[in-house]
Each structure stands twice: as structure tokens, then as C-alpha cells.
């Protein structure tokens, strides 16, 4: 007979633990099932001594277990103590592998260790870290096998087998090889999955014999040895038969299985295939499966305090109590600005009634959406954003109207009214705002940051569809025919499709018969021609522009090849319906023809200078295609004075965010290691407090609420983010000269170990000196003009200037 409880809580992270604690405090029958032999595995696996932050600071904590900013150890100790004090019924090493609805009501939870437990309610708080992939062979749980490495310098003189081929495996192997004898085991015959720098590092280490590599190999068994000098033995299946290695330690870095498959297996549905999608849950955290609740990071709340509050609340809800959600006061403060505000619930209802787009989302999603968003009540005539700003927030109109300036010269405006939205273009393309928007009368807007909006788009299919439709219509209007009405464009819109391309994919080839036109919506393309057997890049087409119109304008065949420079998305416009549109609107034909002539001239100029195309190809190969602004150094001008780095350090608290010397060079064009302010910054992807933003001029910067988790450092493919302490203040030039105080201008950095207690390392990166009126200090401090910053649109002109 399986044991029976009222509430089973799966996962003892901050969410699950706080739920269990509340249940215990209330004296309810409960069980807390945790896969690992300790509580809160995600926090347990933080680096030793890590300082954990309690963002968002304004949110009150509401949980029977303590939590405030402090060291990982202090927090974990506090939780262990609370679990004991409250007599939480925790079962360790109970990894839940299946949750089924039991025939007699309630749920049946199967655990990996063979036990089964039944419960009336299930609270799932398994986080997003997923389960670490183990070796998958006998011996995977031996003490000499580990799945994490805190400090590589802790080991020396050992024989260590590292299993895996990703960034973590490579970084560990390379670091360990300084003091140990390291063998790396790779299932495949290459390290293509890793970042470029890591791939180079490991290949070099293997070539130099510092690391031995078994390719096409997989572990078969690990045995503990009791005699001899080595602790164990590992047997590998290799392409040439079995191999045996005597080992001190095995470190497996095989990544984690995303928890999604397991959650779906429990019957919970996800709204879309997008990996960013989170399951839809009610305001009481209940999923589509009645009685199954979801809290914490899995439900889309990536911070500890939020997870803990939800754990508390979910138990109250299950017990049928009404609680005011912890975020109620925050929402109240948010809404205070809204004219006619009375209660939060009423304001939320009003928003859902007025803004069609938001009608489809759950109350919980709406609350979260509003927590992240800002209510804005601009005065009539106030600028909400300007054309060419780089901001990427999304606006919904709750009341009143706004004016979109479609044609600045003619002062032509169109009005958007209550219920409509705007700002979706920059959100999707990562590019500058395409028009200025001014506030109209009685305007109440919701401004939502990029991350929250993207998460909502990924989670709610209806929202994605609605936004895409409007996007296509508006992009047609703004790019081709501002004078056309929605009706006139209806045919083209109906025949339009969204298409995705991977980097390097061909949209169409030179010589093909053209039957469509592509408007780039995300990413960028290159246009190239085959000249003398060589593919020569003629131009670069950033998001917001179109290709393929030439074939529709008379020439029947494609005159050049279009390729995705990076992962891209286009709106494919059907040729027939587009031709009809052109026939109906004569100015459109003229407009297209004049643009066509300009392009042909530019292409001819490039063709006359085929080596220019090589420079563009080189830059694109460095990932410059996704940049909005990239630092280039002309090595034939650079006198290696490092003034650029000094300037960066001096204006940014002592740490230079650029490494001049590192990076590839082609024809004297050097791409140093420095932020490119990507269109869709990878660093923003996984930042728990959403601390990374884009400023109106395009600078991607990190705000002060960074919690130092290091995700962005790992996610940036160009290695330009560092973790650093805040430095002490520098003395002024005069003070230094006369009093010898501190370190002088451009002098070696401060002692980075010197920092106030409780201070943490935070992420630092290039912010293009957005706070300096003159612009980037690196560029302005280069005595010879070798350092410049340009955007990819300027590549063709740049390539031509360098003959």
C-alpha cells in the first residue's frame, strides 16, 4: 500500500521548501519529495561562498523559512534549521519520475527509487535547472564520479577523466590540465557545440598533448578500486575497441535534461514549442490538471523570493483560504498613477477589457505582466519614443490615443486608439524605432520590457498570432505604401508568410526564377554574386529592408544570391499579389524603381572591388552580422599604445571591458574582444533579475540590480562580459600628481581583492560610454584613429574605403 498524504510537494527549492514549511506550520499532512540528498539543489550547487541576492528588494518576504541576502552557506543552514524546527516531512533521494491521476481521485507519484506515494494535491516546484545528466552506466554514483567542479585548483597531480564536449566540460578540462593529467571523452568526433574560443582552446590542448582525447567514445563502466594508487578504473567503448583508464576522479559535464518532458508527462500542457514557454497557470498557481499546482522558476518566476512567496500562497489556496498575493501592494503602487484607480482587481479587469491583445491571458500571467510593466500617463504631445531610438519595450493603449508620425517631412500622422498596441517592430527586429510616437489626449499606456513581452509571446499562441498579423500589415505600410489602406493591402497580407532561416541558409539563388519578395524581420542577409567562380559579397541587408524585388520588377531571374548572415526571419510576400499592389499604386512602382537603381549602382561599385567583399565576409564570419555597433581596429594605424584599454578602464571603474590584442585580423582589420551590442543580445537571455537593458542609443548595459549569477558571462558568445568587484574611487589628476594618492591615470588597476565585506562580483561589460557626453572613450582616446565603431550597415562603405 502506498503511503497517502494530503499534499505532496515535489522539489525542495525555495518554492517547494516554503510550501512544505507552510503545510507543516499549519499541521497539514504533507510530504516533500527531493531527488537529492540535500535541500534546494539549485542553491546547493551555487559556487561555494557565493553571495545570494534577495532581489526584488521591494517585494516583502512571506514564508515560514528565513531568507535574506547573504552567503550561500548561511542561507542553506537557515533552511536546514527551519526544516528541522518545523518538522517538515522531507524524503530525500526521492526523484519523482511520473505523476498520474489515481483512479480513486488524487494523484499517484512514482519515485525513481521504486516507492509510490499518493496525495490529494501536488505542488510542483522543480525549477528549471533540470536533472543533471549522469554517466548512464554502472558506477555513475560512485564517490569518485562528480557532476560539478567548483575550483579546479583544488586538485593537483591526479588523473581526471572529463566526460562531455560542451563549454562546461572544456572549461573544466582545460583548467584542470594545468595541474593534473586530464583525459577528455567525447561521444562525437568534434567539439562543434562549444563556443569558438573554447573549441580552439581544447583543440590546442589536445594537439599539444596537454590533454588526451578519446573521440567517438562513451563510458561503459566505472569501478572503484581498493588496491593500488588510483581510486578507480574507467572502461570506455571507443571506435577501436575498449580502453581502460586508471583514474582518481571522473567529472561528467553532460548538461541537464530540461524538466519540460517530465512536466508534460504529468499532463500539464505548454502553450507552444518555444523553449521559453512556461505552462499556463491560474491565479492560484493551478495548472490545467486539476489539483496540480506549479510554483517557482518552472512557472516563470526566476527569483528566490518570488518562489518562496508562491510556496506559501499555494498552500493557503489549496486549503481554501484567501490570501492577498504578496505582490498586491506592489501592483497597487503601479496602478496608483492610473486615473480612476480603485482596486487592483478592478484595474486588471479594465485592462483586459480594453486591450484585446491581453484578453486571452490568465489572471496570473496578467499580474506578472503588470508587475514587470510600467503604467505611463504622458501629457498630450509628449514624445513616447523617437524614430531611431534603440529602445525595445512594448506598449499597449489602455485609454486615449497616440499619434504615430509616419512621415516627418509632411507631418503625416496616424492615430492608434484604445486597445491597440505599438512598439512591436523594434521588439521583434532588435533594431531602431521606425517612427516617432506622440501621446494624444487622456493617454494611459502600459510599457512592458522586452523580456516579459517575449515570454508572453512564447507562452500564448494567440498573442503571437495577433502581433505577427499587425506586424506584417504595418511593415508593409511603413516600408512600401504609407498611403495604402488596410483594405488595399489585405490581399498581400493574406498571402504573406513568415519564414525562418539558419545562418548561411539560402533564400534564393542567382539565376533562379523569382516569384516572391522577402522583407527581413529578424536578423540580416547578404547579397552575393558568383564572380570568376568565387562568391563575392556585394551588400548587407539588415532587418527592416527587403530583397528580391528586382525579379518582380521586370527582370525575371534573380540577379544575385541572398543568404541569411545570421539566424533570420523574413516576411515572404507573394509575387503575384505584390505585382497587383504595384499596379494599383503607381507611386510604389516609382519608389521601388529608384531604390532599385541605387542598389544596382552600389552593387556595381562593389563588384569593381571584389576584395571589399572579402572584408565583409570576414566581418560576418566573426558574427558581426548580428551586431548593431562593433569596434574595429585598423592594425596599420594602431600604435599599440593601449590608450583605448586605459580609457575604458579609467571611465569604467578600473576594469577594461575590451581586450585590444585578442581577436582575429584580416587585411589589417582587427576585431578586438569587445561588445557588439547585438540586435538580440544573447546576454539578456537568462538574467534572473532582468538587469540587462538596451538604452535609446543602442547601448546594451547592465544595471545595478545584477545579482552576479554569471549567466550572461556564459551566454555571450563573444566572451566580453567579466565578473568584477566595484573598485574604490580614483583620485583626481591633480590629487594624484601633487599628493601621490591612489593610482594614476591609465595605471595598473586597483587591487581587485580589496572590497567591502558583503560586496559581490557583478557582471561588467561595455556600455559604449552611454554616460559620457562625448561618446565611446576607447574611440575618442585613440591618438591615431585606429579604433572606430561602426554598424553593419556601414560595412559596404567601409570595405570600399579600404582599398
Amino acid at each position: 500500500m502506498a503511503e497517502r498524504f494530503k499534499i505532496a510537494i515535489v522539489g525542495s527549492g525555495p518554492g517547494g521548501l516554503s510550501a512544505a514549511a507552510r503545510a507543516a506550520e499549519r499541521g497539514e499532512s504533507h510530504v516533500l519529495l527531493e531527488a537529492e540528498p540535500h535541500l534546494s539543489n539549485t542553491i546547493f550547487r551555487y559556487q561555494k561562498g557565493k553571495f545570494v541576492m534577495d532581489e526584488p528588494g521591494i517585494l516583502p518576504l512571506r514564508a515560514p523559512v528565513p531568507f535574506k541576502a547573504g552567503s550561500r552557506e548561511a542561507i542553506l543552514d537557515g533552511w536546514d534549521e527551519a526544516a528541522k524546527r518545523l518538522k517538515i516531512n522531507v524524503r530525500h533521494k526521492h526523484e519523482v519520475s511520473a505523476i498520474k491521476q489515481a483512479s480513486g481521485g488524487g494523484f499517484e507519484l512514482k519515485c525513481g527509487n521504486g516507492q509510490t506515494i499518493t496525495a490529494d494535491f501536488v505542488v510542483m516546484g522543480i525549477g528549471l535547472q533540470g536533472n543533471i545528466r549522469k554517466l548512464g552506466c554502472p558506477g555513475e554514483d560512485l564517490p569518485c564520479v562528480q557532476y560539478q567542479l567548483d575550483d579546479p585548483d583544488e586538485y593537483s597531480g591526479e588523473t581526471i577523466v572529463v566526460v562531455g564536449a560542451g563549454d562546461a566540460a572544456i572549461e573544466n578540462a582545460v583548467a584542470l590540465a594545468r595541474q593534473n593529467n586530464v583525459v577528455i571523452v567525447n561521444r562525437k568526433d568534434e567539439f562543434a557545440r562549444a563556443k569558438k574560443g573554447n573549441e580552439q582552446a581544447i583543440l590546442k590542448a589536445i594537439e599539444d598533448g596537454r590533454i588526451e582525447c578519446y573521440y567517438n567514445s562513451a563510458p561503459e563502466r566505472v569501478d572503484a578500486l581498493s588496491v593500488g594508487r588510483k581510486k578507480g578504473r574507467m572502461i570506455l567503448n571507443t571506435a577501436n575497441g575498449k580502453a581502460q583508464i586508471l583514474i582518481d576522479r571522473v567529472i561528467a559535464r553532460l548538461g541537464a535534461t530540461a524538466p519540460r518532458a517530465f512536466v508534460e508527462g504529468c499532463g500539464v500542457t505548454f502553450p507552444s514549442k518555444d523553449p521559453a514557454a512556461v505552462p499556463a497557470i491560474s491565479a492560484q498557481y493551478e495548472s490545467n490538471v486539476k489539483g496540480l499546482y506549479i510554483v517557482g522558476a518552472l512557472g516563470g518566476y526566476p527569483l528566490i523570493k518570488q518562489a518562496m512567496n508562491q510556496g506559501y500562497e499555494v498552500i493557503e489556496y489549496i486549503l481554501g483560504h484567501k490570501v492577498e498575493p504578496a505582490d498586491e501592494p506592489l501592483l497597487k503602487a503601479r496602478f496608483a498613477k492610473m486615473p480612476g484607480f480603485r482596486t487592483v482587481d478592478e484595474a486588471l479587469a479594465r485592462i483586459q477589457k480594453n486591450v484585446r491583445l491581453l484578453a486571452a491571458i490568465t489572471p496570473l500571467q496578467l499580474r506578472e505582466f503588470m508587475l514587470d510593466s510600467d503604467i505611463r500617463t504622458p501629457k498630450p504631445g509628449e514624445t513616447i519614443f523617437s524614430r531611431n531610438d534603440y529602445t525595445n519595450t512594448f506598449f499597449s493603449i489602455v485609454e486615449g490615443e497616440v499619434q504615430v508620425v509616419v512621415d516627418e517631412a509632411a507631418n503625416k500622422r496616424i492615430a492608434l486608439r484604445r486597445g491597440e498596441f505599438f512598439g512591436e517592430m523594434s521588439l521583434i527586429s532588435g533594431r531602431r524605432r521606425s517612427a516617432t510616437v506622440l501621446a494624444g489626449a487622456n493617454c494611459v499606456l502600459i510599457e512592458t520590457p522586452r523580456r516579459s513581452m517575449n515570454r508572453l509571446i512564447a507562452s500564448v499562441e494567440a498573442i503571437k498570432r495577433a502581433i505577427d498579423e499587425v506586424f506584417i500589415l504595418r511593415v508593409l505600410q511603413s516600408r512600401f505604401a504609407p498611403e495604402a489602406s488596410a483594405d488595399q493591402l489585405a490581399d498581400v497580407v493574406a498571402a504573406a508568410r513568415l519564414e525562418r532561416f539558419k545562418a548561411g541558409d539560402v533564400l534564393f539563388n542567382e539565376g533562379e526564377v523569382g516569384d516572391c519578395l522577402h522583407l527581413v524581420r529578424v536578423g540580416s542577409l547578404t547579397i552575393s554574386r558568383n564572380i570568376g567562380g568565387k562568391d563575392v559579397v556585394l551588400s548587407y541587408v539588415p532587418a527592416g529592408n527587403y530583397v528580391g524585388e528586382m525579379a518582380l520588377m521586370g527582370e525575371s531571374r534573380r540577379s544575385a544570391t541572398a543568404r541569411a548572415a545570421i539566424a533570420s526571419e523574413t516576411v515572404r510576400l507573394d509575387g503575384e499579389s505584390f505585382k497587383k499592389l504595384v499596379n494599383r499604386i503607381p507611386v510604389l512602382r516609382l519608389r521601388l524603381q529608384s531604390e532599385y537603381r541605387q542598389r544596382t549602382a552600389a552593387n556595381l561599385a562593389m563588384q569593381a572591388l571584389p576584395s571589399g567583399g572579402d572584408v565583409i565576409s570576414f566581418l560576418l564570419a566573426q558574427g558581426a552580422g548580428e551586431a548593431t555597433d562593433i569596434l574595429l581596429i585598423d592594425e596599420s594605424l594602431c600604435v599599440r599604445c593601449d590608450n583605448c584599454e586605459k580609457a575604458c578602464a579609467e571611465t569604467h571603474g578600473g576594469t577594461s571591458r575590451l581586450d585590444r590584442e585578442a581577436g582575429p585580423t584580416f587585411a589589417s582589420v582587427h576585431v578586438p574582444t569587445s561588445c557588439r551590442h547585438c540586435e538580440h543580445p544573447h546576454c539578456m537571455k537568462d538574467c534572473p533579475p532582468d538587469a540587462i537593458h538596451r538604452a535609446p542609443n543602442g547601448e546594451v548595459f547592465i544595471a545595478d540590480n545584477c545579482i552576479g549569477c554569471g549567466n550572461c558571462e556564459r551566454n555571450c558568445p563573444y566572451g566580453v562580459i567579466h565578473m568584477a568587484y566595484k573598485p574604490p574611487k580614483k583620485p583626481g589628476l591633480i590629487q594624484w600628481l601633487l599628493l601621490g594618492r591612489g593610482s594614476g591615470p591609465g595605471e595598473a588597476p586597483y587591487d581587485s581583492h580589496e572590497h567591502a565585506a558583503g560586496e559581490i562580483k557583478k557582471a561588467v561589460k561595455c556600455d559604449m560610454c552611454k554616460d559620457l557626453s562625448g561618446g565611446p572613450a576607447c574611440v575618442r582616446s585613440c591618438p591615431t584613429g585606429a579604433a572606430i565603431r561602426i554598424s553593419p550597415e556601414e560595412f559596404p562603405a567601409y570595405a570600399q574605403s579600404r582599398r
Partner: protein
Amino acid sequence: MHDSILTYARSRYLWIASALSAASLIAYNLYDPGGPPNGGTWLGYTLGTIGALLIVWLMLFGMRKRRYGSHTGTLRGWLSAHIYLGTSLILIVLLHAGFQFGWNIHTFAFVLMLFVIFSGFFGVYVYLRYPNLMTRNRESATRDAMLDEVAEIDQNALALADGIDPKIHAIVLRSIQNTRLGGGVWTQLRAHDGSDIALDSLHAAMAERDKRADMKTTEMPTMFAMVDFLAGRATDKQGEAMRALIDLISRKKGLATKVARDIQYQAMMEIWLYIHVPLSFALLAALIAHIVSSFFYW
């Protein structure tokens, strides 16, 4: 986009400096001081003041260079102006002094100024020429990467030598200890590293070995001591190892030469500033002395 300090902003400062020079020349030719032209005339004072202000402004370049957060233009613009206006000083001061020189503080200041300016010319020359040389020499490796590789070769060479003979080991070790890249100003500028010597001894050892493969010599200088060993008992395997070792050390020599040259280029791009800047301070002092003395003792 990328253009040199000379062509910056379509050589805007060349035109400004030329205009300034032309204006001074015209004034000099039109103005009749009623005596020999010199610094004490009305025009002399004017030109002298212009010159002194220019010098002060040229010195401020060093200050601007270190005001990293400054928003007064770009350093490149400043340098372009520095070069052209600095050059025009020669003419302006010549006209100011009315081409009169003597063994006095005034002429001393003038000579100092010429030194500063001509060292500046040299600086411009290296700034325009050396970056390319450096890029070509490096072949897109970084200096640290080259140094790492040198260190690695050293390791491998030692390991190889260890397997051959203790004496060879000693030679290699000594060569490693003698490899000094960088160092004092002179070594930096000479671009030399020490691996030639080791390579020479190894080659000699190799040659000796081949020549005297079957000769017994006991009275050899120590450098060839291991040849006895090789000739006497060496197996072919050791000969191979020797060859591999020579290859390694040759490669290291190639690399080390590159690093040394890299350092040399960098030194060339920096060293002239050690003349330019101190002399410019000396100039400033001399200039003050000149002005003060002209006022008190003319």
C-alpha cells in the same frame, strides 16, 4: 572611417596651419619695424605670443591624452592639429626672432623647440610605418600566444634533451635561461634573443658527431663532451632525438626572433616620446626664462 592622422578630417589642420604660416609671412613682409626685425618689435611680440600660446597648447595634449572621459573632440583630432600646428611653430618663431640668433637663452629655447619638433617628426614617421611592420611580423598571433608557445617549446625541448644526455640537457637548460626577451631599453631595440648560441652548439655537436662517428677523443672542450658519448654509445634513436631537438630549437629561434622584433617595434613606437616629452618640459622652462629675461633685460 579609418584614415590616418595626416589625412584626418581632410587634413583640416594642415590648412589651418598653412593659413597661420601664410598670415605670419605676409605680416612679416608688410610690417616695417623701422629697424632689423626682431622679437622686441610689435610684430615680434605678437608672433612670440602666438608661439608661446601654441607651445602651451601643444603641451596640453599630454593632459588631454589622460583625460579619458573628456568630451573635447577626439584624441585623433587633437593629434592631427598637434602635428600641423606644431610644425608651423618653426616658421612662426623664426619670424618672431627675425632670424637673429646668438649664444643666449633665447636661442637655447629655440634649439630645444627644434629638438622637440624633429623628434615629433620621427614619431610621426614610426607611427605611420611601424604598425604595418608589426602586423606583418605577428601574422595574427598575439605576443602572449607567441610567448606561450616559446615556453611550451622550451618544455618539450627539455624533455627531449633529458632523454638524450645530461650534457645536452644542460645546454638546452642554459639556452632557456639565456633567452631573455625584452629587458633593458637597449636589448629591446636590438631585437636579439639568446637561442643562437644553443643552436650553434647543438649544430656543432651534431656535425662533430657525424664527422667523428668512429673517432675516440678524450681531450675535447666540454662543449663537445657529449659528442664522445654520442659517438661512443649513441643509438640511432638518440640521433633522431637530437635532430628533433635541433628542429625544436630552430622553431623556437624563429618565434623568439619574432617576439624580439615585436618588442623592438613597440619600443620604437614608444622610445621617442621619452625624448619628445622631457624636452618639451625643458622647452617650457627655457621659454619662461626667455620671456622673463626679455622683459627684464632688454
